[in-house]
């Protein structure tokens, strides 16, 4: 559809896109600005697009009301472990399914793909029972083990397999003639070529772990163990009313770092996703 557009058409398109941007950008703006408003101004009319008074103590209160630094660490280290673990497991499995001939490969691949049909929500009750039996309730193990080995990693394996299937085989054949084993071929030749797909898997996996909500509230019970999504909903007063400005300060601290990383690396981000073999 790329044709040269008339100037009038261009202005029209810019205008349309600016209007469409409002619901994508405004909430983040509103979150940041409202997080530094005193509670008395939080529902002011007319709404203040820029705070008329500033109250930065909200950020301090986040840490007083919740062990927020600890919860931040919980979310960060769980997401990091899950991302690295999934990249290892899914790139190995994806490579084998795409490249190595072994008996029952297709049958096993079909079994693994069942994971796509059985989201963790379906199995949350037995998973709870299993982890209860293993003494892992109110630990982070369920949030680490299930995403790396269970249903969420199947999607990653599928992406990796699609990528390796499309990869030309000559390099590997040459390496095999030179007597390299499978592990070395995978590690030295195939994996470095798979960086775009690995990048996409890393992004998906990190965001999935970072956003996990049902699993933490099922598996975790003490505030010290909470992850960020769970912690964010805990900023309520004695009557259960939301302490909006403090809650929004916590939300800002949760959202902004990832957003900044994305803005600086958006090219790799977006192109990684676009070229991940998900095109269908």
């Amino acid at each position, binding site marked *: 559809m790329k044709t040269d557009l008339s100037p009038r058409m261009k202005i029209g398109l810019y205008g349309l896109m600016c209007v469409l941007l409002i619901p994508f950008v405004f909430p983040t703006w*509103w979150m940041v600005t409202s997080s530094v408003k005193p509670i008395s101004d939080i529902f002011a009319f007319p709404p203040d697009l820029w705070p008329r008074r500033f109250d930065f103590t909200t950020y301090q209160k986040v840490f007083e009301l919740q062990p927020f630094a600890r919860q931040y660490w919980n979310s960060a280290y769980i997401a990091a472990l899950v991302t690295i673990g999934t990249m290892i497991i899914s790139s190995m499995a994806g490579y084998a399914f795409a490249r190595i001939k072994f008996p029952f490969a297709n049958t096993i691949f079909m079994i693994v793909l069942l994971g796509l049909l059985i989201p963790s929500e*379906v199995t949350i009750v037995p998973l709870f029972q299993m982890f209860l039996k293993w003494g892992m309730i109110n630990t982070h193990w369920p949030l680490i083990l299930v995403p790396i080995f269970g249903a969420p990693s199947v999607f990653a394996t599928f992406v990796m397999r699609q990528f390796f299937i499309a990869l030309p085989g000559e390099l590997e054949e040459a390496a*095999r003639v030179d007597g390299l084993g499978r592990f070395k071929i995978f590690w030295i030749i195939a994996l470095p070529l798979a960086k775009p797909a690995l990048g996409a898997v890393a992004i998906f996996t990190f965001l999935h772990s970072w956003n996990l909500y049902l699993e933490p509230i099922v598996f975790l019970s003490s505030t010290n163990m909470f992850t960020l999504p769970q912690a964010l*909903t805990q900023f309520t007063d004695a009557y259960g009313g939301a302490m909006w400005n403090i809650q929004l300060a916590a*939300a800002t601290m949760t*959202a902004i770092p990832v957003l900044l990383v994305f803005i600086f690396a958006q090219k790799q981000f977006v192109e990684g996703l676009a070229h991940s073999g998900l095109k269908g």
Partner: protein
Amino acid sequence: MTAAADSPPRKRPFWTIERRDAAAGYVFIAPQLIGIVTFVLIPLGLVFWYSLHEWNVLANTFNFVGSANYQMLLNDKALPQVLLSSAIFSAGLVVLNMSLALLLAVLLDQKLKGIVVFRTLFFSPVVVSLVAWTIVWSFLLQNNGGINGMLQMIGVEGPNWLRHPSTAMLSVVVVQVFKNVGLNMILFLAALQGVPKELYEAARVDGAGRFKQFRRITLPLISPTILLTSIITIVGSLQVFAQIAVLTQGGPGMSTTVLVYYLYQQAFQFHFFGYGSTLSILLFVIVAVLTFAQWQLRKRIVFYEN
């Protein structure tokens, strides 16, 4: 291998390249396969087994009751409403998400300066923490919140979005659409950019207008992407939980209680693990049927396969 050198020459070594390769294949897939068996297949078997039991954790009862939970499912007065809410949510989400994603992808595919800035901004909610995003929208949608405040400035009395049955579901859908439409947008954009330019040239020579080009060339060529994203979006929509929990807690009434939320309530709030498991089986069947149906559609509708 050294052993092979000592043995008579006509005997081939046991570890041929093929066998070593096959062994490596099993080693490579072992962690994933063991994980799927442990965390997906065995739990799926268990959830079916549980669904045949009356199991109350608080009362510490676990009795085999056969199909009683499934009869309860059929007689559950709340269930039609729950399924209706799920269907409205999924249908609304898929239709709005796919059409907005396609519109944005077409806009971003134009030759305009600074288009990357727009692409980045449209995509940005995808990387914002889901619960943080939902909390801000919850704040905006309060009766005296930002959206109604702005409506009031232009003289419009806004509804109490999250507390009114007719707007609560709409609000949940819209919040989720803006959160994740960027993903489908990027996949569509990649597909649009993969359409050979010569086809448009040829169509223009034949006198086809922009709209006709879009319908006759673009849509058929990107139909595999449309199918794949629609499967991902529908299956994803059935898993919605955090948004409901934060925005409406399933209310007002049961108007936004979707299946996963209902399942969570039954199993983990009311401690009916047996009936919760039955609802899990129902969720599994729905996901499986929808995925299968879409996969079948692929043969009929998808025009172009590479």
